[in-house]
């Protein structure tokens, strides 16, 4: 049995899948926004809405990214626990605000920095919890 430790390679894969995940959300939001004028009230109108969404090129670009994420994500899950991989993947909540400072020159509030610090500490703790487990098993 191989070690389930969170290595640097796994961390880089997780960040890569996170960045793609963010792009996916952006594409999907774009494809849904374009259909803003459609009111979804029942099954029939929901189907009309979905039909319009699936006609949007943004959705298909998003789906292509989904396939790539699936391959990366499967490789990650082959190595580490689901309960470690999913929390660490919350890294995108840190990447997006940091990217918006550098690329969009957005201002980040103190409260938001506090939230980012919470997530970062949580990610570090969850990563370490995987190491401790190995130590216990030895």
């Amino acid at each position, binding site marked *: 049995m*191989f070690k389930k430790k969170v290595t640097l*390679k*796994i961390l880089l894969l997780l960040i890569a899948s996170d960045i793609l995940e963010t792009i996916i959300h952006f594409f*999907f*939001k774009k*494809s*849904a*926004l374009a*259909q*803003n004028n*459609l009111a*979804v009230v029942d099954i029939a109108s*929901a189907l009309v*809405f*979905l039909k319009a*969404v699936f006609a949007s090129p943004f959705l298909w670009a998003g789906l292509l990214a989904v396939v790539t994420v699936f*391959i990366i*994500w*499967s*490789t990650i*899950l*082959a*190595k580490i*626990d*689901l*309960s*470690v991989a*999913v*929390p660490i993947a*919350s890294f995108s*909540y840190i990447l997006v*605000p940091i990217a918006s400072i550098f690329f969009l020159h957005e201002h980040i*509030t103190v*409260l*938001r920095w*506090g*939230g*980012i*610090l*919470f*997530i*970062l*500490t*949580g*990610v*570090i*703790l*969850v*990563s*370490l*919890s*995987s190491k*401790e*487990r190995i130590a216990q098993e030895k």
Partner: protein
Amino acid sequence: MKDGLLIVLSLIALTSLCDTINQLFLKSAINSLNFTPTFNIVRIFKFIFQLLIKPRLWVGFVFSVISLCIWLLVLSKADLNFAFSADSMHYIFIALASKVILKERFNSLRWLGTGLIISGIVIVSLS
């Protein structure tokens, strides 16, 4: 308005739940393959192929499609910030399902870390 909020919240819970089920099937399919992680592209594709012929992966895939459809509906109704903060309940579902169904072992560090991440996401999304 309050009715609308309740509907959006239930939809978000439903999409989180469907995604959790999808992750469970995926992880269980991967666990059954006993693949040793590698950065050899050929071996990775072989692994993905073996994964794709597992029926339980496709059960998970169906849930993933349902989850995506509901999520698109949520995004058309709700503010992205609110949707993301409410979606942090996903981490609770994943933690519980991993522990109960996949029998992954949790220590206090993992619980604490997961709790911090959930609080952080709510703060970041709502601030």
